[in-house]
């Protein structure tokens, strides 16, 4: 964490601008998909939200590592807020993925869609993180156990993904191949804008939540000092 940070109002304004631009690009600039038509446009949000959720989970694990390794007193709260944001974005992935499955395959849930199944597993895993965290009293033990469990999460992501690939035939529309993204022009531009917008939005929400939480801690300390 750097000493100089972008102020929160600037972040909020830029995320509003970016999300609006992304919406405009998705609806007015990106061309219609040849097979899926207009409905394919949800892909720009589904995929970029999924990557933002991964970024949150990985960031949460990184902060967990900092807590265990460097004993950084701020890392525990940061790790928790990252996982919380990841779970919110994960919910959005499940919802958008479900809508996409309904439009593309006619059913609300498709087991052969690897990403969606992976997110369901991760969702259950990180929900259990909250169950774990809130059934231990605040203190070093809670911080340690939460951090260890958050680290398990980043090991689980690739392992689960390969498990799902092993279990099912690959059915998801292949967006990335070994030869780079197989889409170009405005599609790529729109996707990149949507991705940046979601990452900035996630970071803004993270800063907002952690700011509130830290203020809460300070307030409690002040109250204890006054009492």
């Amino acid at each position: 964490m750097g000493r100089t940070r972008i102020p929160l109002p600037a972040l909020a304004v830029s995320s509003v601008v970016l999300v609006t631009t992304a919406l405009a690009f998705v609806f007015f600039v990106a061309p219609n998909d040849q097979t899926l038509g207009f409905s394919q446009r949800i892909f720009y949000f589904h995929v970029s939200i999924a990557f933002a959720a991964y970024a949150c989970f990985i960031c949460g694990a990184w902060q967990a590592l900092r807590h265990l390794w460097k004993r950084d007193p701020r890392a525990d709260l940061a790790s928790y807020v990252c996982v919380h944001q990841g779970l919110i974005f994960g919910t959005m992935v499940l919802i958008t993925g479900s809508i996409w499955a309904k439009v593309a395959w006619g059913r609300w849930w498709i087991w052969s869609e690897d990403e969606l199944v992976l997110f369901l597993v991760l969702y259950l895993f990180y929900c259990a993180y909250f169950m774990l965290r809130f059934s231990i009293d605040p203190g070093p033990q809670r911080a340690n156990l939460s951090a260890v469990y958050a680290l398990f999460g980043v090991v689980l992501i690739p392992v689960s993904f390969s498990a799902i690939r092993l279990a099912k035939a690959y059915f998801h529309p292949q967006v990335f191949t070994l030869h780079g993204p197989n889409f170009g022009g405005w599609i790529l531009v729109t996707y990149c804008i949507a991705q940046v917008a979601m990452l900035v939005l996630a970071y803004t929400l993270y800063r907002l939540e952690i700011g509130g939480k830290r203020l809460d801690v300070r307030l409690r300390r002040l109250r204890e000092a006054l009492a």
Partner: protein
Amino acid sequence: MTTYVRDVGALARKDLLLELRARDTLPAMLLFVAAIFVVFHFALPGTPSRLETTGFLWVAILFTALLGLGRAFVPEREQRTMDGLVLAPCDRSAIWLAKSLATLAFLVAAEVVALPLYALFFHGLDGATVAAVILADLGICAVGTFLGAMAVVTRARDLLLPLLFLPLAMPIVVGAVGASVVDSPGRYLGFLALYDVLFAVVCWASFEYVVAE
């Protein structure tokens, strides 16, 4: 190194001796697995295929293991011996390793009865399934014991272990069921072995933080 092995041996022997005298985990696991087979028979209408009963075998193994894992740290909690173990002059990961080995012994003992019972009630077993059982047991005990140590210090206790464990056990189920049903199980067995090694290393390295106050 030899001290470490001796510590692990002593700790595992303690758990096995405790079970030998009190007998509260293994009989429960055996009864549970037999009862669950009977439930499966009535839950599967008609004559279930080999594929279907294989899936149920893995559900039975997973839940029987959960029963044993839930009990793993109960003596430590009830007798308040965890503090003593943590203060003992041994590496803390030895506590996890010894507990995993003891749980593995219970699970294998339960399966020695459960697998012939499955063959008797449903369908015969092949070598790949037995290999998958052995590999899956290692992963289940390594991860499950670790999470059991986490769950036991929480307020929710036994309630929390299945919630923590089942998402992490999903890859084990994929590898195990895959190895039991396909013709060439090599890939699935390899995946199970990889899972075991990966999570055993993670558990071994981070157990210290679970028990440290």
